[in-house]
């Protein structure tokens, strides 16, 4: 399984702080497994993606295998 963690307001859109999806998982597979509104929000380049704590430069190239953790990171908050 792949764990998907939602941070900040993305957790509200997802309705949960995390979910588990089958491995392997790519960007299209991730988007397809999420609520449509959330999938569209993720296309905004200000929302970043990390795999196992490492930021992904190109979301479309996302690849995650069994045991990996994907984090979906909205912009950090201001002061």
């Amino acid at each position, binding site marked *: 399984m792949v764990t998907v963690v939602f941070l*900040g*307001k993305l957790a509200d859109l997802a309705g949960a702080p995390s979910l588990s999806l089958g491995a392997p998982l790519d960007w299209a597979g991730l988007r397809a497994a999420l609520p449509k509104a959330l999938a569209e929000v993720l296309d905004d380049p200000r929302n970043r993606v*990390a795999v196992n704590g490492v930021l992904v430069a190109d979301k479309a190239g996302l690849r995650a295998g069994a045991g990996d953790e994907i*984090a979906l*990171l*909205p912009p*950090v*908050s*201001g*002061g």
Partner: protein
Amino acid sequence: MRDIRLLDRLFIPGALIGPFTNANPGLGGVCTFVGEVRSDNGVEALELTHYEPLTLPGMHELADSAFARFDLMGLLMVHRVGVMHPGEPIVCVSAAARHRRDAIGAVDFCMDHLKSAAWFWKREKRSGQWHWIEPREQDRADLARWHEPI
């Protein structure tokens, strides 16, 4: 002397600063900033979420940058996570240096980066409702000060 921490409960900045100062003998000055939860706009509570694999490593990278940019003897950087109430400290950054400009500059630098570039998400409770806090243009402008040619 370098002390970087995320804390999930109330802390007393004064209890950190004394030992930090003593741990840097020979210093010329210590600058400390403590940020507290304001009760502006009827804020009842503030919640800070972090993402363990990014937040603490990010604070260590920020400390590396501060040591590279300023002539420091020590740096303390403590950030609360979880639910806080007005008047509680959120963040404490303290820099010890031989010269005051390095100590003050390092605190200014770390605070600007913690406020606008560190991996924290905040929401405020007002009238019983939680509201996410969006990035602020002012914070971006504050951060940009450090990217200009020096």
